[in-house]
């Protein structure tokens, strides 16, 4: 019997130990009553920008710990709809934000704080001499795009419709980073990714802007959750993002500022 207790106890300990970390994002208020946690769910493409803003926000608000949860917007939206605890949600498309607003989880109307556009990405020096969107239809090129199910792919499809140029990609990738990866590793001649991805890839790629990209601009909406444990901090965060400081960081990373 002793052994059984031991086994159960050990199992309970293991489960408690494994589950404890992520279960509760807002730690119990301890000796410092002003120690608070702000949980922000943000699209993966905002990683660089929001990480920089986190430092700023924590400096401006002593005792506040900003916890950032980055991921694909649609995954984050699903997590929120299924009860994931957060104060703020910043999505990389209006459609994913709609999933959350439709569930009645966002206070008021989400605000568009940034926009992103597609660019053609090639190897440094543009060895295939690509000058515009029409070049991507060249049969001698191996082109990768995002799948139409994800925002960058939907934008690419929109441009195809607008221009009447049909691309025959060798692969439709599940996210913009893997599309970029195909080009940075030299396994594709060209790809369609966001301006911000080209900026983050630095010298390993070359970006080629094309006028037709204006027909498929992606909006980045941000909103405070109705169930936010820290609604005031949440509003302070959205103010920072939509304010001059936030906009400067966003444009610095290649985003087009709020419309």
């Amino acid at each position: 019997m002793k052994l059984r207790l031991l086994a159960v106890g050990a199992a309970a300990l293991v489960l408690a130990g494994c589950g404890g970390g992520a279960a509760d994002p807002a730690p119990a208020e301890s000796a410092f009553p002003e120690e608070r946690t702000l949980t922000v769910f943000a699209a993966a493409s905002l990683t660089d920008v929001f990480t920089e803003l986190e430092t700023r926000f924590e400096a401006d608000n002593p005792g506040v710990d900003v916890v950032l949860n980055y991921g694909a917007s649609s995954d984050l939206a699903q997590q929120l709809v299924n009860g994931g605890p957060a104060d703020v949600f910043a999505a990389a498309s209006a459609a994913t934000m709609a999933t959350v607003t439709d569930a009645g989880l966002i206070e008021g109307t989400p605000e568009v704080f940034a926009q992103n556009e597609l660019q053609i990405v090639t190897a440094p020096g543009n060895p295939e001499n690509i000058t515009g969107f029409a070049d991507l239809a060249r049969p001698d090129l191996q082109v990768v795009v995002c799948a139409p199910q994800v925002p960058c792919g939907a934008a690419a499809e929109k441009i195809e419709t607008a221009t009447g140029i049909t691309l025959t990609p060798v692969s439709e990738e599940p996210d913009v980073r893997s599309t970029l990866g195909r080009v940075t590793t030299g396994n594709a001649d060209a790809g369609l990714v966001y301006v911000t991805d080209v900026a983050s890839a630095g010298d390993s790629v070359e970006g080629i802007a094309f006028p037709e990209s204006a027909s498929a601009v992606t909006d980045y909406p941000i909103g405070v959750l109705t169930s936010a444990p820290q609604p005031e901090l949440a509003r302070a965060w959205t103010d920072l993002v939509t304010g001059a400081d936030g906009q400067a960081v966003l444009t610095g990373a290649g985003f087009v500022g709020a419309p």
Partner: protein
Amino acid sequence: MTTPVTARRAGRADRAAVGLPRFLWIPAGLAFALIALPVVGLGLRTDWPRLPELLLSEASLDALRLSLITASCSTAICILLGGPLAVVLARGHLPGLQFLRSVVLLPLVLPPVVGGLALLYLVGRTGLVGQGLDLAFGITVPYTTAAVVLAQTFVALPFLVVSLEGALRTSGQRYEAVAATLGASPALAFRRVTVPLVLPGLLSGAVLAFARCLGEFGATIAFAGSLEGTTRTLPLLVYLARESDVDAAVALSLLLVVVAVLVIAIARPRTVAS
């Protein structure tokens, strides 16, 4: 061949006589629930009325077809190449065999994405071998159905090798020795004695490998890419569908579960243990 069967029966009777320590039931039950309950959750979340429509779309039929074809090809390659490898590992006398065995097990412990990247850097367009293929023959391996098969074979090979090697070791070499004393050459003894003896192990290994191929995602997406009809297998479609239509993703997941359960049920994993 009656002796091994009776031996196995006797073994089973022994186990029943010894009985099961009761304290094992609780962790065992938890372990089972951990595996079974999420699948139940999938069933609960399924939009049953829309199921036929979701499963019969052209994209899902394409993906299912591609998954079954590539998994079959990969399993065949696993048997043709992995079978001999298992025999060498079980019966061979080579220096460093232990090291070889641990290399064979690598795909089991590596994240499949790492396997995909490794393949990409080997036979991708800029890879060690791929660059030559591209320059000499204009062949690009990624983005082809062959790349899917290669990725699946990479992750599934150890499943076949391990279960077959296990079967070879437990069956022992007595019968081969007898065959040899009766004048059979190693090749004849292998064909007439070894192969029939380990056939159940080979079969269950092949089914495990097939199931692993069906579920392969990481190596495929990293190496082969994703294009309907060419490289987009069922797991890739599930991953993509959950971006835009969660119901479709759940329905496709359920389909994958049903196919996997069917495969495993046919294989009866207990033959692995014997």
